[in-house]
């Protein structure tokens, strides 16, 4: 039941998380920052804009991104197989990339290509993480993981760390916000969207927050307090990292993911497989 509610209200919760994040970020910079509900104000404002677009395909892909993102979250929370949820996320990326590539704006196109680099960085790691959870819990089923009586985090410390460092890639945060790269490509894939169409993308991003932090939550097993603690920790950590790093080149991001994160996670998995 709770997951049905969470799925349906995902945009709402995601918006709140995003709102908190903006305030926290401002505070970390010694600013007051926007009000907590700012994302929703933005949402309403964007809905109220006169729609303009480049062409229908592009606008449509923005909406499809939102739907696909939501659907992927639904698959994660309502389905039972984590692996499938990981692959569903690719559909969202597809619509984002196709939409962004469909306009003849260099920034959008570069953003789409960089988005692909993001995918190549985090996708294998997500698969590995799911397999690692399987090794611990013995099931790909989210319900089984959430009722697992141990502490997955204890067995998967490196996987967790690796995932912690992939969160910036998924949520477009410094140092890995290369696809959004405001000062370079001004938002990349999202640059050409405006008004209600941009709103779809904007909200899609909020859902991604829930999507990502759900995975963090899983590391707590059946100990929900631990899961919540981990989520809070991850949230703070990611934001602190965001505020204390410069944006890296996408080449460096891919190298980091492939040269460091994936081997680290794989190492953890191998150790686990050997000792189980």
């Amino acid at each position, binding site marked *: 039941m709770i997951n049905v509610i969470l799925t349906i209200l995902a945009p709402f919760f995601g918006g709140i998380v995003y709102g908190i994040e903006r305030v926290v970020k401002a505070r970390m*910079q010694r*600013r*007051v*920052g*926007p009000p907590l509900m700012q994302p929703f*104000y933005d949402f*309403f404002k964007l809905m*109220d804009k006169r729609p303009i677009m480049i062409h229908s395909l592009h606008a449509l892909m923005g909406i499809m991104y939102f739907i696909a993102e939501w659907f992927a979250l639904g698959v994660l929370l309502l389905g039972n197989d984590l692996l499938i949820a990981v692959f569903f996320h690719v559909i969202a990326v597809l619509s984002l990339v196709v939409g962004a590539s469909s306009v003849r704006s260099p920034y959008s196109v570069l953003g789409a290509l960089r988005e692909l680099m993001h995918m190549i960085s985090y996708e294998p790691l997500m698969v590995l993480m799911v397999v690692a959870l399987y090794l611990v819990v013995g099931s790909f089923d989210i319900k089984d993981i959430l009722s697992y009586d141990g502490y997955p985090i204890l067995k998967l410390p490196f996987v967790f760390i690796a995932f912690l460092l992939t969160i910036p890639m998924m949520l477009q945060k410094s140092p890995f916000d290369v696809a959004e790269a*405001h000062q370079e490509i001004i938002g990349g894939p999202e640059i050409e969207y*405006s008004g209600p169409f941009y709103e779809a993308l904007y909200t899609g991003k909020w859902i991604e927050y829930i999507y990502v932090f759900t995975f963090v939550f899983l590391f707590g097993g059946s100990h929900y307090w631990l899961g919540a603690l981990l989520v809070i920790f991850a949230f703070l950590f990611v934001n602190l990292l965001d505020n204390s790093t410069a944006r890296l080149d996408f080449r460096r991001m891919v190298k980091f993911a492939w040269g460091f994160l994936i081997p680290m996670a794989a190492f953890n998995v191998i150790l686990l497989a050997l000792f189980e």
Partner: protein
Amino acid sequence: MGFFSKFRKKSPWILHYNTGGCNGCDIEILSALAPRYDIERFGMLNRGNPKQADILLVTGPVTKNCKDVLRRLYLEMAEPKVVVAMGACAHGGGIFRNFYHVENGVNNIIPVDVWIPGCAPRVEALIDGMVEAIEIWQQKSKEKEYLRDHEKVIKTLGVEDDG
């Protein structure tokens, strides 16, 4: 005024363009983003992108080289939108009034809603201007504001290209 329009004033996103001023105003805009003044308190973000911007913040007297760019940016913004002209030179050219390569102020190119006096205005003045602009913005409708020769402008300012 529908349900959504009530929230308009809480989330103005700005686009900044310098049309040939002395940068004095532009660095004050930068200061406004910084912790001391932090205009994100009003939900303002510097989007740098006309598609998502609500307030076009123009500085400078509009040089001849910049005027088409300014016009294009204005046309790429979605209604409702407001234009804020910051600084003396955005109003009638300021000290650059009647120079041979300036267009004597933003209002000669695109319609301006708020002028902020000063050279350079203090950040407080910028904030005052923004507050004023938000009020005006809230009253604006979503209807397309035709800029003089809108259709012609979009045709002549557009780019046809190689494929």
